Structures are given as C-alpha cells and as structure tokens.
C-alpha cells in the first residue's frame, strides 16, 4: 500500500522536472533556428557556417576580443582612448577559459554557454514565479526565443547577470543570506550595478529580523550571535573588489573601469535630465519614436515597475531595481533597453502578469516568438535602440 502511494508521487516529480528542462530547451532550439533564419535574411554576407559569429555586433565584439586576448594594457593597442576595462570580467573570463581549454571558436562557446545559462536562469526563476508553469513558459520564451533573446543567447554579460540575480533572489526568498552573499559576489564581478544587490540583501535581512520580532536595541547582539549576515554583506562586493585588485596590479588604477567611461563619452549627470532629453528627442521624420525615445521609454517602464514594487512593499528588490536603472541613466541613455530587459525583478512581475490570463498568455507567447525573428533582423539592420 505504501509503495503504491509513493510511486505515483515520484513519477509526478520526475515528469515535472522534465518539463522544467524541456520547456526552455525547446525554446532554445526554436530561438536558435529563428535567429539563424533572421541572420540568413539580414546578416552581412550570411552563411550557415558564419552563424553564430554573424550575430555578434557592438559590445559583443568587445567581449569576443576580451575573451581572446584579455584586458587592454595602457596605452591601448591601436592607440584608442577607450580601453576595454569598462567590461566586467566574470562572463568573458568563463568564455575565455573555455576557449583556452578547447580552442573552439569563441562565439560558438559563448552561444552554447549563454543558452545554458538562460535555461538555468529560467529554471531558477520557477520558484520566483510561484511555480506557475504558464509564467515559467513565458519567461523561458522571453529569454531564449523572445524579442531580446539576442542578449541572452550570443555574447553579452546580461545572461550571467540575469542568472545570478535570479539565484540571489531565490536565496533571499529562502532567507539563505550566505548563499545570497556568494551569488552577489559573483554578480558584482559580472556588471558594475551587480554590487548594489548588497543593499537588497541587507534590507531583506533587516525586514526579516523585524518580522521575527527583533528590535533596534537587539540588533547588535543579534549580529554578534549570528554574524552570517555580516559575512554575506561583506562577500557581496567581493567580485568587484577582486576586479579592482587585478586592475591595480595590471595597470595601476583599481578604478580604471570607472575612469575609462570618460573615453566612452559617458558624462555623469542628472539621470532625470538625461531621461527628459531622451524622451523629448523627437524623430526628424515619421511617427515612430526616435532611438533616444525608445531608450527613454524603456527606462520609464523599468522605473514604473520599480515604483509598483515599492508600492507592493517589496523594498529590497525595488531599491535594487531603482539603483540598477538610475546608475546607468546618470551617464546617458546608451543601452538602457538592454539594461531594463536584463533586470529580473522588473521582468518577472511583468511576465507573471501577462501569464495570468490564458488569452493574454497565448498572444504574448506568439508575439515573443515572432519578435525573436523580427528583432534579430532589426539587430542586424542596426536598430540603435537595441544596442
């Protein structure tokens, strides 16, 4: 009798795990083929053999060089002012390491690893989506077969940023602060804004502490008795500090990644002034928004979702999102669309909302798949909003 009741449960679990892998894997294959067709239609001298290299544009090309040859010395070869120190090391190091081990083409490795990381990011997000299979399906499609899949399936650091953000969010959901700290350490070596997840970790712990009945007077004794949170907070920026230490010993400037922004034309300023300039940059002709307006609109969407998170009292992730948006915005509008769609706490609630109603889910899914093809064509046709 016991065996009879236990057996179906095991079967269900196995079947369920299979779906968690099968759904994103299916979208990975579909997306790969769709982008191949888009490339064959719109790529430069397209051929099947030149895929996926042919999808690599803009920052992707910087990442490829970084993975192959490492960081620029000073003076930069080619006598450019813009060294590649602005690009954080973790993802290029992973790809570069695999390239050194296997000697396979960098873009082939990067594409395979990005797709694997995207599948991983979707699986980690499943509990964050309250184990809603429809939302999980939509999120898998978004990452692997959606309009912005190029960021998550070629060679951009965003895919690792999404995976690690989801890991940290899951660790926080489970109140595992030390795991969150380790994830954050990796996140801070992935993109500069990753370091700000430390605020979410600290704030989440504080809210949990207060929820458990802790008061301000008992805070220091609590930290002394259970110092794991202090370690988690100190671990969080460790990836960034490791990169800084490397830069200092390599070229004498630990903050080269920040200082080089000047050569990239990124001027620190009022983020809301930049946003206004972007939103009011009307197109010279036609009715479609200008590139800056698209970038501005994506920032507005990101800020609006962050405001909703604040309203829902999800303060830790709301503040993280706001910082992740405002920091790049305070240096201009460049790449805002990419930054917004790679911000999991912004994307996940929108996905959950779209998956709530079956007809909306179906329409969105079809739009994502169609968007994968057309946005890849747009990417190859140099739609600057996507850069």
């Amino acid at each position: 009798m016991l065996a009879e009741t236990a057996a179906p449960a095991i079967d269900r679990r196995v079947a369920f795990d299979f779906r968690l892998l099968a759904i994103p894997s299916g979208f990975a294959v579909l997306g790969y083929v769709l982008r191949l067709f888009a490339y064959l239609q719109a790529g430069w001298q397209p051929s099947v053999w030149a895929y996926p290299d042919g999808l690599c544009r803009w920052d992707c090309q910087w990442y490829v060089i970084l993975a192959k040859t490492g960081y620029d010395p000073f003076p930069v070869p080619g006598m450019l002012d813009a060294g590649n120190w602005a690009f954080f090391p973790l993802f290029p190091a992973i790809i570069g390491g695999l390239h050194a081990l296997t000697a396979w083409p960098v873009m082939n490795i990067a594409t395979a690893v990005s797709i694997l990381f995207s599948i991983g990011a979707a699986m980690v997000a499943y509990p964050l989506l309250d184990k809603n299979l429809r939302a999980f399906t939509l999120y898998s499609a978004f990452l692997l077969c959606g309009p912005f899949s190029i960021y998550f399936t070629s060679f951009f650091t965003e895919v690792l940023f999404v995976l690690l953000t989801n890991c940290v969010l899951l660790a926080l959901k489970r109140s595992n602060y030390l795991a969150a700290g380790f994830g954050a350490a990796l996140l801070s070596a992935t993109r500069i804004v990753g370091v700000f997840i430390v605020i979410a970790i600290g704030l989440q712990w504080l809210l949990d502490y207060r929820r458990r009945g802790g008061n301000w007077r008992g805070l220091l004794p609590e930290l002394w008795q259970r110092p794991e949170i202090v370690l988690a907070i100190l671990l969080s920026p460790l990836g960034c500090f490791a990169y800084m230490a490397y830069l200092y010993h390599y070229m004498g400037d630990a903050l080269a990644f920040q200082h080089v922004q000047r050569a990239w034309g990124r001027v620190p300023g009022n983020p809301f002034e930049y946003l206004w300039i972007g939103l009011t940059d009307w197109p010279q002709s036609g009715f479609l928004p200008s590139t800056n307006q698209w970038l501005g609109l994506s920032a507005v969407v990101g800020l609006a979702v962050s405001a909703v998170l604040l309203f829902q009292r999800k303060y830790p992730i709301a503040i993280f999102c706001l910082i992740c948006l405002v920091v790049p915005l305070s240096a201009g509008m460049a790449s805002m669309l990419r930054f917004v769609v790679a911000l999991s706490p912004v994307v996940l609630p929108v996905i959950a909302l779209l998956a709530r109603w079956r007809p909306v889910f179906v329409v969105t899914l079809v739009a994502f798949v169609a968007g994968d093809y057309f946005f890849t064509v747009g990417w190859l046709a140099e739609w600057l909003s996507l850069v």
Partner: protein
Amino acid sequence: MSSAVVFGRAWRLLVLLLILGVAGVELYVAWLAIHPNVSTNYRAFYIDQSTTCLDKPISGQYRLGQTVSFMPDNQAGARRLRVCGWDGPAGDGTHSVGTTSLLRFAVTEPTGDLTLAMLVTAISAPDRRDQHIVVTGNGVTLGEATIPDSTQQMLEFRVPESAIDRAHGRLDVTIAYPTATEMTPRDSDTHYRSIKLMSVQLRRPEDVPSQGPQDDPVALRHGHGPDGPNA
C-alpha cells in the same frame, strides 16, 4: 557539551574570521583605489580630466616637405602623426574631438624656420558658430585662426626653429579649440567637435607648398582627395 554546540561555536568562529579576512582585503583594495599608480598623461585624461587629449607614444615619423593626407585614403601616414584629439577619418577628413588635438612631427635634422600648412574645414555647428583655433608648437605660440562655419581654408603658420624640441627631435603641434562645440545635448567634452583636418605639411622655405591631400603620393595612388578622383 553537545557536538551541535561545539559545531555551532566553531562555525561562528569561522564566520567571524572570514569577516575579518574579507573586510581586511576590501579595505586594502579600497586604499589601492584611492592611490592609483599611473603615468602623468593617464592621470590627466582619465582621473583629473584636465585634458581631452590623451598623449600616446606616437613616433611622428615624417619627411619634411611631405604632404600627409588625413582623408580616408592614407591613414598609414596620418596615424604616424596623430597623437590624440582626432576621430575618424570620415569621408571628408579627420574630425577633431575634444578641446585640443595633438600632431607630432619627428624633426631630427637642422632646419631653420619651417612652415606648417593645414587644410581644414570648420564643422557645421548646431549654432553655426565660427571655429577659432590656437596653434602652438612645443608650447610656443604659432598663431591663431578663425574659420567660418562649414568653410574650408588652407592655414599656414611659421614655425620658428626655437619651437622644435631638439632634445627629443620632434615638434608637437597642439591645436586648441576654444569654440569647440557640443554636437548633442550633454555630450562629453571628449566628443566636442571643431574642425576636420584634410592634410598637413611641414616644409622648409625651399619646399613646394602643399595644395591639399591630393599632393600626398599615397592619396594619389588611391585616387581619393577633396576634389574627387585623381587621374
């Protein structure tokens, strides 16, 4: 004492030690961050931001009297002279970027006074302003010029022998742009524009004056110049 208590204490001790270790490492790196160990030109450009022109080890290899094209046809020659503050070339010349540009000429033999000739076009500024430039050679003022918006001019400046750095055998020509223009709102000063350079020549009195990039033998070979294809 139970093993759980012992393990708990050991774990807490390990965490405290890790806290000390990680905090120590991070403080050390923070100290490194505020004490960069970099060259003067790196500091000036990236950290102090006191210049938009990052001085780089360019040879300045040059034969006196030679016209060097800064059109897209002869960057091999131009790249030996352009140190910083240049972008491109675009189809109609090499853009100045920032508030100063630097050209370097290796001058190893005795010369006497020289003449620096530059064919330039003022950019089309959003406010149609004239472009004013101030030219110095190793710190010695060579002259100034004002070029009306979108206008092309051949500029010539006398270079006294005293301006040439004999110790290093070179002439560093700095072109300052007090009217350099922001092309888009909130643009970086490293992206300001002022002129487009089409050709340069540093000549002795007996050399033939340059007429522009078409006098560059490499430009002739490639058939590109400001006046269209050359025969």
